[in-house]
Protein backbone atom coordinates (compact mmCIF):
# COMPACT_ATOMS: atom_id res chain seq x y z
CA UNK A 1 0.00 0.00 0.00
CA UNK A 2 2.57 2.51 1.08
CA UNK A 3 4.77 1.37 -1.80
CA UNK A 4 2.06 2.17 -4.29
CA UNK A 5 1.51 5.53 -2.64
CA UNK A 6 5.24 6.14 -2.68
CA UNK A 7 5.52 5.42 -6.39
CA UNK A 8 2.43 7.46 -7.11
CA UNK A 9 4.02 10.33 -5.21
CA UNK A 10 7.21 10.00 -7.18
CA UNK A 11 5.33 9.82 -10.45
CA UNK A 12 3.32 12.90 -9.65
CA UNK A 13 6.42 14.63 -8.27
CA UNK A 14 8.46 13.90 -11.37
CA UNK A 15 5.63 15.02 -13.65
CA UNK A 16 5.10 18.27 -11.77
CA UNK A 17 8.79 19.06 -11.43
CA UNK A 18 9.58 18.26 -15.03
CA UNK A 19 6.69 20.26 -16.44
CA UNK A 20 7.54 23.19 -14.20
CA UNK A 21 11.14 23.02 -15.28
CA UNK A 22 10.10 22.87 -18.91
CA UNK A 23 7.96 25.95 -18.46
CA UNK A 24 10.63 27.81 -16.55
CA UNK A 25 13.14 26.93 -19.21
CA UNK A 26 11.26 29.21 -21.58
CA UNK A 27 12.06 32.06 -19.25
CA UNK A 28 15.53 30.73 -18.49
CA UNK A 29 16.47 30.43 -22.13
CA UNK A 30 15.27 33.91 -22.96
CA UNK A 31 17.14 35.39 -20.04
CA UNK A 32 20.32 33.51 -20.88
CA UNK A 33 20.16 34.38 -24.56
CA UNK A 34 19.62 38.00 -23.60
CA UNK A 35 22.55 37.86 -21.22
CA UNK A 36 24.85 36.65 -23.97
CA UNK A 37 23.48 39.21 -26.36
CA UNK A 38 23.98 42.06 -23.89
CA UNK A 39 20.29 42.49 -23.25
CA UNK A 40 18.01 41.87 -20.31
CA UNK A 41 15.36 39.56 -21.64
CA UNK A 42 11.99 39.32 -19.97
CA UNK A 43 12.36 41.27 -16.76
CA UNK A 44 9.10 43.14 -16.37
CA UNK A 45 6.51 40.57 -15.36
CA UNK A 46 6.91 39.53 -11.73
CA UNK A 47 10.28 39.18 -9.95
CA UNK A 48 13.06 38.87 -12.56
CA UNK A 49 10.33 38.51 -15.14
CA UNK A 50 9.50 35.06 -13.86
CA UNK A 51 5.81 35.57 -14.37
CA UNK A 52 6.53 35.96 -18.06
CA UNK A 53 6.01 32.20 -18.17
CA UNK A 54 2.52 32.64 -16.79
CA UNK A 55 1.79 35.42 -19.20
CA UNK A 56 3.00 33.30 -22.08
CA UNK A 57 0.90 30.38 -20.91
CA UNK A 58 -2.20 32.52 -20.64
CA UNK A 59 -1.51 33.89 -24.08
CA UNK A 60 -0.94 30.54 -25.67
CA UNK A 61 -4.08 29.09 -24.11
CA UNK A 62 -6.19 31.94 -25.38
CA UNK A 63 -4.87 31.91 -28.89
CA UNK A 64 -7.16 30.71 -31.59
CA UNK A 65 -6.83 26.94 -31.86
CA UNK A 66 -6.77 26.83 -35.61
CA UNK A 67 -6.72 23.66 -37.61
CA UNK A 68 -5.76 24.19 -41.20
CA UNK A 69 -8.76 23.22 -43.36
CA UNK A 70 -6.44 21.37 -45.72
CA UNK A 71 -4.81 19.36 -42.91
CA UNK A 72 -5.38 15.74 -41.99
CA UNK A 73 -7.38 16.69 -38.95
CA UNK A 74 -6.95 13.81 -36.52
CA UNK A 75 -3.30 13.18 -37.18
CA UNK A 76 -2.76 16.91 -36.99
CA UNK A 77 -4.30 17.02 -33.52
CA UNK A 78 -2.61 13.84 -32.37
CA UNK A 79 0.93 14.65 -33.49
CA UNK A 80 1.97 17.21 -30.86
CA UNK A 81 0.90 14.96 -28.00
CA UNK A 82 3.33 12.21 -29.05
CA UNK A 83 6.46 14.18 -28.34
CA UNK A 84 5.30 15.31 -24.91
CA UNK A 85 4.17 11.82 -23.94
CA UNK A 86 7.29 10.16 -25.28
CA UNK A 87 9.65 12.51 -23.50
CA UNK A 88 7.70 12.34 -20.25
CA UNK A 89 7.81 8.53 -20.45
CA UNK A 90 11.57 8.84 -20.85
CA UNK A 91 11.78 10.45 -17.44
CA UNK A 92 10.46 7.20 -15.91
CA UNK A 93 13.91 5.72 -15.80
CA UNK A 94 15.83 8.81 -14.72
CA UNK A 95 17.39 8.25 -11.30
CA UNK A 96 17.12 11.63 -9.60
CA UNK A 97 18.59 10.38 -6.35
CA UNK A 98 18.91 7.10 -4.57
CA UNK A 99 15.33 5.86 -4.30
CA UNK A 100 13.82 8.67 -6.32
CA UNK A 101 13.20 6.95 -9.58
CA UNK A 102 9.91 5.93 -11.08
CA UNK A 103 11.06 2.65 -12.53
CA UNK A 104 14.51 1.24 -12.10
CA UNK A 105 14.37 -1.12 -15.06
CA UNK A 106 17.21 -3.39 -15.89
CA UNK A 107 16.93 -2.22 -19.48
CA UNK A 108 16.52 1.45 -18.54
CA UNK A 109 19.03 2.66 -21.07
CA UNK A 110 17.35 0.85 -23.94
CA UNK A 111 14.01 2.14 -22.72
CA UNK A 112 15.34 5.69 -22.82
CA UNK A 113 16.63 5.21 -26.37
CA UNK A 114 13.29 3.76 -27.41
CA UNK A 115 11.34 6.65 -25.93
CA UNK A 116 13.55 9.32 -27.41
CA UNK A 117 13.14 7.76 -30.87
CA UNK A 118 9.37 7.93 -30.52
CA UNK A 119 9.63 11.72 -30.66
CA UNK A 120 10.44 11.39 -34.36
CA UNK A 121 6.85 10.33 -35.02
CA UNK A 122 5.62 13.57 -33.66
CA UNK A 123 7.66 15.56 -36.16
CA UNK A 124 6.89 13.22 -38.99
CA UNK A 125 3.14 13.08 -38.44
CA UNK A 126 2.81 16.76 -37.58
CA UNK A 127 4.66 17.77 -40.72
CA UNK A 128 2.89 15.41 -43.07
CA UNK A 129 -0.59 16.02 -41.71
CA UNK A 130 -0.17 19.79 -42.10
CA UNK A 131 -0.32 19.26 -45.86
CA UNK A 132 2.02 22.15 -46.43
CA UNK A 133 5.22 21.98 -48.40
CA UNK A 134 7.32 23.68 -45.74
CA UNK A 135 5.97 21.38 -43.06
CA UNK A 136 6.62 18.37 -45.24
CA UNK A 137 10.22 19.41 -45.90
CA UNK A 138 10.66 20.07 -42.19
CA UNK A 139 9.35 16.69 -41.19
CA UNK A 140 11.43 14.90 -43.82
CA UNK A 141 14.53 16.57 -42.46
CA UNK A 142 13.45 15.83 -38.90
CA UNK A 143 12.87 12.15 -39.57
CA UNK A 144 16.13 11.69 -41.42
CA UNK A 145 18.02 13.61 -38.81
CA UNK A 146 16.59 11.76 -35.82
CA UNK A 147 17.03 8.34 -37.41
CA UNK A 148 20.62 9.06 -38.43
CA UNK A 149 21.70 10.35 -35.07
CA UNK A 150 19.74 7.64 -33.24
CA UNK A 151 22.22 5.06 -34.54
CA UNK A 152 25.40 6.31 -32.94
CA UNK A 153 23.58 7.81 -30.00
CA UNK A 154 22.95 4.25 -28.97
CA UNK A 155 26.42 3.06 -29.97
CA UNK A 156 28.08 5.89 -28.05
CA UNK A 157 26.33 4.70 -24.89
CA UNK A 158 27.55 1.15 -25.31
CA UNK A 159 30.88 2.16 -23.86
CA UNK A 160 29.08 3.21 -20.70
CA UNK A 161 27.23 -0.07 -20.66
CA UNK A 162 30.47 -1.99 -21.06
CA UNK A 163 32.07 -0.09 -18.20
CA UNK A 164 29.14 -0.47 -15.86
CA UNK A 165 28.08 -3.93 -16.95
CA UNK A 166 24.45 -2.89 -16.83
CA UNK A 167 21.61 -1.28 -18.71
CA UNK A 168 20.05 -0.07 -15.50
CA UNK A 169 20.57 3.61 -14.97
CA UNK A 170 20.80 3.26 -11.21
CA UNK A 171 23.56 0.75 -11.66
CA UNK A 172 25.31 2.98 -14.14
CA UNK A 173 25.28 5.87 -11.68
CA UNK A 174 26.51 3.66 -8.90
CA UNK A 175 29.29 2.39 -11.15
CA UNK A 176 30.66 5.92 -11.33
CA UNK A 177 31.38 6.13 -7.60
CA UNK A 178 35.11 6.19 -8.24
CA UNK A 179 35.33 7.84 -11.55
CA UNK A 180 32.81 9.66 -13.72
CA UNK A 181 32.49 7.95 -17.06
CA UNK A 182 33.26 11.20 -18.83
CA UNK A 183 36.94 10.45 -18.33
CA UNK A 184 37.14 6.98 -19.86
CA UNK A 185 34.30 7.65 -22.21
CA UNK A 186 35.13 11.23 -23.26
CA UNK A 187 34.58 10.47 -26.93
CA UNK A 188 31.36 8.70 -26.05
CA UNK A 189 30.27 11.81 -24.13
CA UNK A 190 31.03 14.15 -27.01
CA UNK A 191 29.18 11.96 -29.49
CA UNK A 192 26.26 11.51 -27.17
CA UNK A 193 26.10 15.24 -26.56
CA UNK A 194 26.09 16.06 -30.25
CA UNK A 195 23.57 13.32 -30.93
CA UNK A 196 21.45 14.69 -28.09
CA UNK A 197 21.42 18.11 -29.61
CA UNK A 198 20.39 16.62 -32.92
CA UNK A 199 17.80 14.38 -31.25
CA UNK A 200 16.09 17.35 -29.64
CA UNK A 201 16.63 19.28 -32.89
CA UNK A 202 17.99 22.23 -31.02
CA UNK A 203 20.17 24.88 -32.57
CA UNK A 204 22.52 24.48 -34.31
CA UNK A 205 20.78 21.28 -35.47
CA UNK A 206 17.31 22.81 -35.74
CA UNK A 207 17.00 22.11 -39.43
CA UNK A 208 13.47 20.65 -39.23
CA UNK A 209 12.19 24.06 -38.21
CA UNK A 210 14.80 26.25 -39.87
CA UNK A 211 12.76 29.45 -39.88
CA UNK A 212 14.93 31.20 -42.43
CA UNK A 213 14.20 28.51 -45.01
CA UNK A 214 11.05 26.67 -44.00
CA UNK A 215 8.93 29.31 -42.22
CA UNK A 216 8.65 27.17 -39.07
CA UNK A 217 9.26 23.75 -40.56
CA UNK A 218 7.08 20.94 -39.37
CA UNK A 219 4.98 23.15 -37.09
CA UNK A 220 4.31 25.97 -39.56
CA UNK A 221 0.58 25.32 -39.44
CA UNK A 222 0.35 24.90 -35.69
CA UNK A 223 -0.93 27.56 -33.37
CA UNK A 224 -2.19 27.96 -29.85
CA UNK A 225 -1.62 25.14 -27.41
CA UNK A 226 -0.86 22.60 -30.12
CA UNK A 227 2.17 24.65 -30.99
CA UNK A 228 2.71 24.95 -27.24
CA UNK A 229 2.92 21.14 -27.00
CA UNK A 230 5.77 21.06 -29.50
CA UNK A 231 7.39 23.81 -27.54
CA UNK A 232 7.03 22.07 -24.20
CA UNK A 233 8.16 18.81 -25.81
CA UNK A 234 11.33 20.51 -26.99
CA UNK A 235 12.19 21.84 -23.52
CA UNK A 236 11.34 18.53 -21.91
CA UNK A 237 13.65 16.93 -24.44
CA UNK A 238 16.48 19.28 -23.48
CA UNK A 239 15.94 18.47 -19.84
CA UNK A 240 15.84 14.74 -20.51
CA UNK A 241 19.01 14.76 -22.59
CA UNK A 242 20.77 16.92 -20.01
CA UNK A 243 19.62 14.59 -17.25
CA UNK A 244 20.89 11.64 -19.25
CA UNK A 245 24.27 13.24 -19.85
CA UNK A 246 24.52 13.84 -16.14
CA UNK A 247 23.48 10.27 -15.43
CA UNK A 248 25.68 8.50 -17.98
CA UNK A 249 28.84 10.56 -17.84
CA UNK A 250 28.83 12.83 -14.79
CA UNK A 251 27.83 10.50 -12.02
CA UNK A 252 24.16 11.40 -11.74
CA UNK A 253 23.32 12.30 -8.18
CA UNK A 254 26.83 11.57 -6.91
CA UNK A 255 28.69 14.42 -5.33
CA UNK A 256 30.21 15.70 -2.12
CA UNK A 257 27.80 15.14 0.72
CA UNK A 258 27.36 18.79 1.78
CA UNK A 259 24.51 18.89 -0.67
CA UNK A 260 21.79 16.26 -0.94
CA UNK A 261 22.11 13.96 -4.00
CA UNK A 262 19.00 15.30 -5.75
CA UNK A 263 20.48 18.79 -5.71
CA UNK A 264 23.71 17.52 -7.27
CA UNK A 265 21.62 15.90 -9.95
CA UNK A 266 19.80 19.09 -10.77
CA UNK A 267 22.95 21.19 -10.69
CA UNK A 268 24.55 18.92 -13.26
CA UNK A 269 21.42 18.80 -15.35
CA UNK A 270 21.15 22.58 -15.37
CA UNK A 271 24.73 22.97 -16.32
CA UNK A 272 24.04 21.02 -19.49
CA UNK A 273 20.81 22.84 -20.15
CA UNK A 274 22.82 26.05 -19.99
CA UNK A 275 25.32 24.56 -22.39
CA UNK A 276 22.47 23.81 -24.76
CA UNK A 277 21.41 27.43 -24.60
CA UNK A 278 24.96 28.63 -25.08
CA UNK A 279 25.16 26.52 -28.20
CA UNK A 280 22.09 28.19 -29.53
CA UNK A 281 23.45 31.61 -28.67
CA UNK A 282 26.74 31.12 -30.46
CA UNK A 283 26.61 28.66 -33.32
CA UNK A 284 25.17 29.07 -36.76
CA UNK A 285 23.05 26.38 -38.34
CA UNK A 286 24.91 24.01 -40.69
CA UNK A 287 23.61 23.04 -44.08
CA UNK A 288 21.51 19.91 -44.19
CA UNK A 289 24.10 17.93 -46.18
CA UNK A 290 26.80 19.02 -43.69
CA UNK A 291 24.65 17.72 -40.88
CA UNK A 292 24.21 14.35 -42.57
CA UNK A 293 27.84 13.92 -43.57
CA UNK A 294 28.96 14.85 -40.04
CA UNK A 295 26.71 12.13 -38.68
CA UNK A 296 27.44 9.31 -41.10
CA UNK A 297 31.04 10.03 -42.04
CA UNK A 298 32.54 11.18 -38.76
CA UNK A 299 30.42 10.48 -35.74
CA UNK A 300 29.29 6.97 -36.66
CA UNK A 301 32.81 5.64 -37.38
CA UNK A 302 34.10 7.47 -34.34
CA UNK A 303 31.49 5.91 -32.08
CA UNK A 304 32.21 2.45 -33.49
CA UNK A 305 35.92 2.92 -32.86
CA UNK A 306 35.11 4.14 -29.37
CA UNK A 307 33.00 1.02 -28.76
CA UNK A 308 35.74 -1.30 -30.07
CA UNK A 309 38.48 0.39 -28.11
CA UNK A 310 36.44 0.40 -24.90
CA UNK A 311 35.50 -3.24 -25.37
CA UNK A 312 39.06 -4.16 -26.14
CA UNK A 313 40.42 -2.39 -23.06
CA UNK A 314 37.73 -3.89 -20.93
CA UNK A 315 38.62 -7.34 -22.27
CA UNK A 316 42.28 -6.70 -21.71
CA UNK A 317 41.89 -5.43 -18.14
CA UNK A 318 38.83 -7.17 -16.78
CA UNK A 319 39.17 -10.36 -18.98
Amino acid at each position, binding site marked *: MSDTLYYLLIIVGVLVVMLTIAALLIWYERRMLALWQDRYGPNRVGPFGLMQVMADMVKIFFKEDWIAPFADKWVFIFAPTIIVVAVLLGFAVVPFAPGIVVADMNIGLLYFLAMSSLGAYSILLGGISSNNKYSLLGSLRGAAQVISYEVFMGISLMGVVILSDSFSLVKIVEAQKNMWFVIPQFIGFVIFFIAGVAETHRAPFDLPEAESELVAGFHSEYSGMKFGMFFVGEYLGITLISAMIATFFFGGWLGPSFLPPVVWFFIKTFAFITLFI*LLRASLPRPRYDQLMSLGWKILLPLSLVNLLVTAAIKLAIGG
Partner: protein
Amino acid sequence: MFSILRSLWLTFLHTFHKRFTIQYPEEKAKLPARWRGRIVLTRDPDGAERCVACYLCAAACPVDCISLQAAEDETGRRYPEFFRINFSRCIFCGFCEDACPTYAIQLTPDFELVEYDRQNLVYEKENLLISGPGKYHDYNFYRVAGYAVGGKGKGEAEREDPPIDIHDLKP
Protein backbone atom coordinates in the same frame (compact mmCIF):
# COMPACT_ATOMS: atom_id res chain seq x y z
CA MET B 1 36.27 22.36 -34.28
CA PHE B 2 38.41 24.81 -32.42
CA SER B 3 36.52 27.71 -33.91
CA ILE B 4 33.28 26.27 -32.56
CA LEU B 5 34.69 26.12 -29.09
CA ARG B 6 36.16 29.57 -29.48
CA SER B 7 32.85 31.04 -30.47
CA LEU B 8 31.19 29.26 -27.55
CA TRP B 9 33.78 30.81 -25.26
CA LEU B 10 33.43 34.27 -26.77
CA THR B 11 29.70 34.11 -26.42
CA PHE B 12 30.07 32.97 -22.87
CA LEU B 13 32.31 35.93 -22.11
CA HIS B 14 29.37 38.20 -22.92
CA THR B 15 28.00 37.15 -19.54
CA PHE B 16 30.25 39.81 -18.11
CA HIS B 17 29.58 42.55 -20.61
CA LYS B 18 27.58 45.69 -19.95
CA ARG B 19 24.04 45.55 -21.29
CA PHE B 20 22.97 47.90 -24.01
CA THR B 21 19.31 47.87 -23.23
CA ILE B 22 17.88 51.16 -22.05
CA GLN B 23 15.22 50.58 -19.45
CA TYR B 24 12.47 52.61 -21.12
CA PRO B 25 10.31 54.22 -19.75
CA GLU B 26 12.32 54.73 -16.53
CA GLU B 27 15.33 55.65 -18.61
CA LYS B 28 14.94 57.68 -21.80
CA ALA B 29 17.07 57.30 -24.86
CA LYS B 30 19.00 60.32 -26.06
CA LEU B 31 17.67 60.88 -29.58
CA PRO B 32 19.47 62.89 -32.26
CA ALA B 33 17.83 66.04 -33.59
CA ARG B 34 17.24 64.38 -36.94
CA TRP B 35 15.37 61.49 -35.40
CA ARG B 36 12.34 60.66 -37.48
CA GLY B 37 9.47 60.86 -35.06
CA ARG B 38 6.24 62.82 -34.78
CA ILE B 39 5.73 65.23 -37.68
CA VAL B 40 5.26 68.95 -37.10
CA LEU B 41 4.56 71.97 -39.26
CA THR B 42 6.86 74.86 -38.50
CA ARG B 43 6.79 78.61 -38.90
CA ASP B 44 9.27 80.85 -40.65
CA PRO B 45 11.52 83.26 -38.68
CA ASP B 46 8.82 85.94 -39.00
CA GLY B 47 6.32 83.71 -37.26
CA ALA B 48 4.14 82.98 -40.28
CA GLU B 49 3.17 79.52 -41.41
CA ARG B 50 5.89 78.02 -43.57
CA CYS B 51 3.69 75.56 -45.42
CA VAL B 52 2.71 76.85 -48.85
CA ALA B 53 0.45 73.88 -49.61
CA CYS B 54 2.45 72.67 -52.60
CA TYR B 55 1.28 69.05 -52.13
CA LEU B 56 4.79 67.64 -52.51
CA CYS B 57 4.76 65.96 -49.09
CA ALA B 58 1.47 64.28 -49.94
CA ALA B 59 2.88 63.13 -53.26
CA ALA B 60 6.06 61.82 -51.65
CA CYS B 61 4.23 59.93 -48.91
CA PRO B 62 4.46 56.22 -49.69
CA VAL B 63 1.46 55.38 -47.51
CA ASP B 64 -0.59 58.36 -48.68
CA CYS B 65 -1.27 59.49 -45.13
CA ILE B 66 -1.00 63.23 -45.77
CA SER B 67 -3.85 65.22 -47.25
CA LEU B 68 -4.31 68.95 -47.50
CA GLN B 69 -6.05 71.67 -49.44
CA ALA B 70 -4.35 74.79 -50.70
CA ALA B 71 -5.85 78.22 -50.11
CA GLU B 72 -4.67 81.73 -50.65
CA ASP B 73 -5.05 84.72 -48.36
CA GLU B 74 -5.89 88.18 -49.69
CA THR B 75 -2.21 89.05 -50.15
CA GLY B 76 -1.58 86.02 -52.34
CA ARG B 77 0.20 83.99 -49.71
CA ARG B 78 -0.52 80.28 -50.01
CA TYR B 79 -1.34 78.21 -46.98
CA PRO B 80 -3.06 74.92 -46.30
CA GLU B 81 -6.76 75.30 -45.62
CA PHE B 82 -6.54 72.01 -43.82
CA PHE B 83 -3.60 69.74 -43.28
CA ARG B 84 -4.14 66.23 -42.04
CA ILE B 85 -1.74 63.45 -41.20
CA ASN B 86 -3.06 60.04 -40.33
CA PHE B 87 -0.37 58.87 -37.92
CA SER B 88 -1.97 55.48 -37.67
CA ARG B 89 -0.73 55.00 -41.25
CA CYS B 90 2.50 56.98 -41.04
CA ILE B 91 5.69 54.93 -41.29
CA PHE B 92 8.00 57.82 -40.33
CA CYS B 93 10.07 57.43 -43.45
CA GLY B 94 10.77 61.16 -43.59
CA PHE B 95 10.13 61.44 -47.33
CA CYS B 96 7.75 64.33 -46.65
CA GLU B 97 10.52 66.27 -44.97
CA ASP B 98 12.85 65.56 -47.89
CA ALA B 99 10.20 66.67 -50.37
CA CYS B 100 9.29 69.88 -48.56
CA PRO B 101 10.69 72.88 -50.45
CA THR B 102 10.06 75.28 -47.57
CA TYR B 103 11.28 73.30 -44.52
CA ALA B 104 7.72 73.48 -43.24
CA ILE B 105 7.19 69.82 -42.50
CA GLN B 106 9.75 68.36 -40.15
CA LEU B 107 10.10 65.16 -38.19
CA THR B 108 10.92 65.50 -34.50
CA PRO B 109 12.57 63.22 -31.93
CA ASP B 110 9.23 62.37 -30.36
CA PHE B 111 8.13 58.82 -30.93
CA GLU B 112 5.69 58.47 -28.06
CA LEU B 113 2.54 58.40 -30.15
CA VAL B 114 0.24 55.98 -28.43
CA GLU B 115 -3.52 56.11 -28.30
CA TYR B 116 -6.18 53.69 -27.22
CA ASP B 117 -8.43 55.00 -29.97
CA ARG B 118 -6.97 54.98 -33.46
CA GLN B 119 -9.11 57.95 -34.38
CA ASN B 120 -6.99 60.10 -32.06
CA LEU B 121 -3.99 59.50 -34.29
CA VAL B 122 -5.50 61.66 -37.01
CA TYR B 123 -3.76 65.00 -36.58
CA GLU B 124 -5.17 68.19 -38.06
CA LYS B 125 -3.28 71.39 -38.73
CA GLU B 126 -3.89 72.77 -35.26
CA ASN B 127 -2.29 69.64 -33.81
CA LEU B 128 0.67 69.81 -36.15
CA LEU B 129 1.58 73.48 -36.26
CA ILE B 130 4.23 74.53 -33.77
CA SER B 131 5.24 78.09 -32.99
CA GLY B 132 8.92 77.91 -33.97
CA PRO B 133 11.11 77.24 -36.99
CA GLY B 134 12.17 73.75 -35.96
CA LYS B 135 15.55 72.58 -37.15
CA TYR B 136 16.06 75.31 -39.72
CA HIS B 137 16.14 78.69 -38.08
CA ASP B 138 16.72 81.16 -40.89
CA TYR B 139 14.94 79.91 -43.95
CA ASN B 140 11.99 81.82 -45.30
CA PHE B 141 10.67 80.57 -48.62
CA TYR B 142 9.00 83.80 -49.66
CA ARG B 143 12.28 85.71 -49.17
CA VAL B 144 13.82 83.76 -52.04
CA ALA B 145 10.78 83.09 -54.23
CA GLY B 146 9.75 85.57 -56.87
CA TYR B 147 6.15 85.45 -55.73
CA ALA B 148 4.62 88.61 -54.30
CA VAL B 149 2.92 88.19 -50.94
CA GLY B 150 1.87 90.52 -48.19
CA GLY B 151 4.87 92.55 -47.03
CA LYS B 152 6.98 91.63 -50.03
CA GLY B 153 6.29 92.95 -53.48
CA LYS B 154 7.79 92.06 -56.84
CA GLY B 155 11.53 92.44 -56.99
CA GLU B 156 11.95 92.54 -53.23
CA ALA B 157 13.11 89.00 -52.73
CA GLU B 158 16.75 88.03 -52.49
CA ARG B 159 18.70 88.44 -55.73
CA GLU B 160 15.98 90.22 -57.55
CA ASP B 161 16.05 93.39 -59.59
CA PRO B 162 13.22 95.86 -59.15
CA PRO B 163 10.28 95.26 -61.51
CA ILE B 164 10.75 96.37 -65.08
CA ASP B 165 8.99 99.45 -66.33
CA ILE B 166 7.64 98.15 -69.61
CA HIS B 167 6.98 101.66 -70.88
CA ASP B 168 10.67 102.39 -70.74
CA LEU B 169 11.98 102.39 -74.30
CA LYS B 170 15.69 102.47 -73.49
CA PRO B 171 17.51 99.57 -75.13
